[in-house]
């Protein structure tokens, strides 16, 4: 079973301001990038992040072999129930995604 972390060089998540989270999936080759785009389909990614596909913005940047997702933060940065001020841990939720 091939997971997203098997095909990606690096998966990084970070705040994009207090209200948005952005996740960058870096791949080394075009082939890996194509695989990443298949594994990380919008429904799987939305489900892993606890959101809906409609709230997910998807950018396939072939020139960089990067797949990027942006979404409203699950909790606004720094509010009572936010657990991760800088949003860097959300990347871990995508590493285990697979086609199955």
């Amino acid at each position, binding site marked *: 079973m091939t997971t997203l972390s098997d095909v990606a060089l690096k998966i990084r998540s970070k*705040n*994009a301001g207090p*209200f948005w989270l952005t996740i960058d999936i870096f791949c080394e080759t075009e082939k890996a990038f194509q695989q990443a785009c298949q594994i990380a389909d919008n429904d799987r990614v939305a489900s892993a992040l606890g959101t809906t596909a409609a709230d997910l913005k998807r950018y396939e*940047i072939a020139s960089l072999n990067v797949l990027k997702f942006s979404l409203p933060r699950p909790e606004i940065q720094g509010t009572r129930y936010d657990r991760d001020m800088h949003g860097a841990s959300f990347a871990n939720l995508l590493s285990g995604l697979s086609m199955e």
Partner: protein
Amino acid sequence: MAQTVLTKILIPSGALGLGYDREALARGVAAKPDLIAIDGGSTDSGPHYLGTGTSKYSRSSIKSEWRELMQARAEAGVPLVIGTAGTSGADSAVDWLVEITKEIVAEMGDTVKVAVLKSGQDQGKMASAYQNNRIKQLQPEIEISPELLQSCSNIVALAGAEQIQKALATGADIIIAGRTTDTATIAALPLARGCHPGGAWHGAKIGECGALATTSPNSGTILIAFDETGFTITPMGQEARATPYTVSAHMLYENSNPFQLYEPGGHLDVTSATYTALDDRTVRVTGSEWVPSDAYTVKLEGSRSGGYQTVSMALVRDPHYVANIREWVADIEKKCTDKARQRVNEAFTLELRLIGVDATLGALETDARIGSEVGVMGIVTAQTEATSREVAKILNPYLLHHPLTEQEEMPTFAFPFSPTEMARGEIYEFCLNHVLELDDPMEAFRLDIMEMSA
């Protein structure tokens, strides 16, 4: 390639207080820049800093680095500009850096002209602006009201290039600006001199994190040369290299949209940008577009109280309790909440997070594994400090002695310190995701000129 308006901006690092390679800064000064620009903060460290108007970094770190940059400025004989001073760019954070600057001037025996640009917004005026339909919603939508605007402890507007240009036009040696966009301090001078607008904003975005757009992020210092058709980025660190990949990939960083960046007065579109390696460490970028907007808007940031918080910590090492940790904390949460409701009249929330299990991701965690011990972090939030402490004290005996069942001998868990509850004081929350429409870019900003001497 026409280069008559060539403007070189030296960026020592991604933020004042982060540190940089001193040799790289010296090489940057030797490259004869037209201006030195540095960022003083962002929202990234959370709502506390805007809420309180205080700095994230230590005063001594800021003073030490700011002194070095002031010395670099004196040597280069060009303006030094800091945006978002004191982490949040709130007025009190600007005043804090102005005080530090005065001390340094006195110690250096220097004489400098300082322009201070303030971005703080009066809560009452913002409530009126909202009622006059001058405040517009961004995505995702956050509901606001005049009362919410009045309740903010600080509201700042993000200045753009126009306000920095006003400050530069005073002939100041040093510009200390409150909240600005990350790019404005870098883009202002190239734009004023007629450099390519798309290139100016794009280069500013690439430069705003210092050497983060190169192969050696920690070297800090980079030089960006702007001209009539685009910009060229040159790292100042000996080992650092900028490549078409490192430069183009930087548009991804902390941007929800990697192709467009909204600024006061328009937006940058880099869809058609081309990145060319001039050699193995220098990259030239052309083809970025600036798209002016109809209305001139500035983004607002606001922070207001989210109540008071007290945090408790206990460590569970007993294998029986570790194995049943979720049941244990669920029982405590219920019993403690019920008891506290009978004893305090104010609303509160109590949450117990399991450190070592799923404290980072909560319900989204799919790979929770339990090890030999679990940290239990109790978080009590209430409208007053007294209530948050009171409930945390009611929680204390549960965290120390709560048995899984009535039949068990009374257990005792590890408290790392006494008392185990720690008051976090007032907590804050970001509460504005809006823009403010302005007829004149200076309408929401204030510029003061000070002569400082030893």
